[in-house]
């Protein structure tokens, strides 16, 4: 019967289509014998076309020097909530970035490729700052990442708003009392937020609160490993929160919007709406790349430290890692790229100059303050190489660069760092949005939550 024949034909067609789909789906993407293709994290989504062009320049330079490697740039930004999804979905580029806080745990779980062999083969391996390298090394000694950059927290301030408020932009605050007073003055005379602190529930609020706690001499954790204890309810954190509470409710110097995260606060600062805020020392790059900041308004200084032996500045950094499912050819290519793009310019004069020239040509910042990945001598040396190309206002950054090396650098809490920050997020939000927030109670609750999360992660 006609309909049976037709039915049979349909059946055959459908089955063969399905078979083709399955076959196509299970075929691995194979690379040809000669070239290896790797995808690499490039820039934050929304970066300016000039920044994107500069990155593509670098890719072209690299591919020219390594004809057997093809590099595919992929937009990338590490944020607490989105990273896990990408990791689970295996959609991370071959080369991607992770903060110090997560790298060791990920490495121990086998979620980062083991790069020990390739990294030890690098010529400058022995010169790497051991503290920084330790962040990339698992408990069993596997090296799973290379450092991209280390930063210390800094106090960024708007020189123009300082002037408008009658403050001297070359004399930024050196104590917390001064921060409070200056913030009040800026708010009164210019109507802008004098001091702003991150308050978004994506771990950044807790990160900055921890920074302030460290600067007052407190710690969020004691002990290490499985015996680590949460100490979120330490007196210094309470002091920090009370200070914010006063600035927010009594002085009214923090503006009216408090849900700023890392990118939002940069954007608000570049738009001239923030007098002072705390963030990593390396944000100037983002201020230029994403928000086209007017260099004249930018100033940065060190965070005031209390006169206590335990007071210090929170230090962190970013590492560059490779997907665990990369084969050895891809791993070798990846390490070559990491070496070329991230590290080489710090150790080889010609590379440093070439990199700087290229950045300048595309109006990207050269000379943004950073912390040494090797040692201070190497760091100073590298800076002299690129001195002719520095296009950031270094004089305006002097309050930071001249004082940071005298400050004690403290690593972030080691166990379940992001979860600890997350428990603090809501505390910061409560203080900023509720006049009657009970700080002691909030800290106690946060401490219990954090302790539980720490216990579950080890």
């Amino acid at each position, binding site marked *: *019967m*006609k*309909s049976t024949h*037709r*039915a049979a034909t*349909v059946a055959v067609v459908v089955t063969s289509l399905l078979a083709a789909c*399955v076959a196509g*789906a*299970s075929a691995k993407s194979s690379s040809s014998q000669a070239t290896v293709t790797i995808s690499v994290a490039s820039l*934050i*989504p*929304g*970066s*300016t*076309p000039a920044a994107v062009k500069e990155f593509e320049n670098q890719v072209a330079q690299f591919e020219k020097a390594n004809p057997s490697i093809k590099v595919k740039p*992929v*937009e990338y930004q590490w944020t607490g909530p989105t990273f896990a*999804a*990408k990791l*689970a*979905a*295996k*959609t991370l580029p071959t080369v991607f970035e992770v903060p110090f806080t997560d790298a060791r745990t990920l490495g121990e779980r086998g979620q980062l490729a083991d790069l020990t062999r390739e990294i030890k083969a690098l010529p400058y391996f022995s010169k790497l700052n051991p503290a920084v390298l330790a962040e990339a090394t698992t408990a069993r000694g596997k090296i799973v990442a290379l450092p991209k950059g280390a930063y210390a927290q800094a106090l960024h301030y708007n020189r123009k708003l300082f002037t408008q408020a009658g403050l001297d932009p070359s004399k930024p605050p050196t104590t917390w009392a001064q921060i409070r007073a200056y913030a009040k003055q800026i708010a009164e005379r210019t109507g802008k937020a004098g001091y702003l602190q991150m308050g978004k529930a994506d771990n950044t609020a807790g990160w900055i609160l921890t920074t302030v706690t460290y600067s007052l001499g407190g710690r969020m954790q004691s002990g290490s490993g499985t015996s680590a204890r949460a100490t979120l309810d330490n007196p210094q954190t309470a002091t920090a929160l009370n200070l914010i509470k006063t600035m927010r409710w009594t002085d009214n110097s923090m503006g009216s919007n408090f849900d700023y*995260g890392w*990118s*939002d606060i*940069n*954007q608000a600062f570049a*738009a001239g*709406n923030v007098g002072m805020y705390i963030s990593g020392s390396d944000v100037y790059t983002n201020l230029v790349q*994403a*928000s*086209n900041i007017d260099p004249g308004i930018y100033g940065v200084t060190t965070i005031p430290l209390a006169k206590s032996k335990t007071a210090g500045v929170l230090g962190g950094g970013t590492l560059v890692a490779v997907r665990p499912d990369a084969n050895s050819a891809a791993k070798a290519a990846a390490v070559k790229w990491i070496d070329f793009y991230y590290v080489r310019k710090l150790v080889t004069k010609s590379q440093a100059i070439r990199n700087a020239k290229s950045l300048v040509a595309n109006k990207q910042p050269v000379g943004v303050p950073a912390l040494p990945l090797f040692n201070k001598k190497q760091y100073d040396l590298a800076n002299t190489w690129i001195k002719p190309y520095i296009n950031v206002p270094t004089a305006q950054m002097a309050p930071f660069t001249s004082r940071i090396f005298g400050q004690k650098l403290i690593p972030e809490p080691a166990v379940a760092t992001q979860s600890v920050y997350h428990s603090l997020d809501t505390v910061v939000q409560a203080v900023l949005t509720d006049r009657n927030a009970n700080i002691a109670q909030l800290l106690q609750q946060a401490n219990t939550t954090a302790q539980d999360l720490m216990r579950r992660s080890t």
Partner: protein
Amino acid sequence: MTRRRRRGADAPVGVISSIEWDRRRVRWAVGGAQLILLVGLVVVGLGPILWLAKSAITPTADTLSHPMSLFRNGTAWDNLSRAWSEVEVGRYFWNTVVLAIGSWLVQILVATTGGFVLSVLRPAYARVLRALLLLTLFVPAVVLLVPLYIEIVNPPLIDRSFVDSYWAIWLPAGASAFNVILVTRFFDNLPREVFEAARIDGAGPLRMFTAIALPMSRPVLAVVSVFAVLASWKDFLWPLLVLSDPDKQPLSVRLPTIQSQTELGVFLAAMLIACLVPIVGFLIFQRPFLRGTGLGGAVKG
């Protein structure tokens, strides 16, 4: 079916009868209320959209400091061009369109074939399937979220993940019990004689489907299409989870991601462009839209 007897201004159309309408006080009271409603609708319904249009071509600084003023420092048409070139609204808009078309096709295919078989052909297993569909209708979408995600990331039989593939959006969109039940109900209401006649003429099921059922099902297909396209346009969480490659993302996922890196004026311009097609499409296709959403379940043949 709407009843509208056009017997002049005194014709009763609702609760108020012609007797009452004769009284001037009633006319003025109701008319007044309707006028207030109209003003309210314009301010509340149209207002935000007009503000968006105005702000899209206003310099950012002005929007930030004086959001309700009208071009106090002139216009900034380059917001729109920057939205097009820097934010690349065009590309993300195209992604949204492709996703909508694919989802729509899958939904039409599944609903028409399913509805036809369950309603007209009625094999032995039809009763079980209809019950199953009704049960599925009552399962809230939240239940599907996590396992569907895991299924896309780690499909059970196939050795690769479907993240960043449009099939991960198109195919699950077809699993809408509402669509199938709608079409089944529609076919239920069609006169059986047409199909009987066709069977007697020797038509097989496929023939009956393509030659009779499909042509007659235009009204319900219009309703299903409206729902399908709207749902796809509005979809946020699922594409957010499944499409991590920025090149593939629709507007709904892309816009929030770049908000903090994009200047406000340009961002608003991008949002305006994102709105234009749905608004224009709606204005053109008003009648099927409104008819579809108002009378969806009561389609009588």
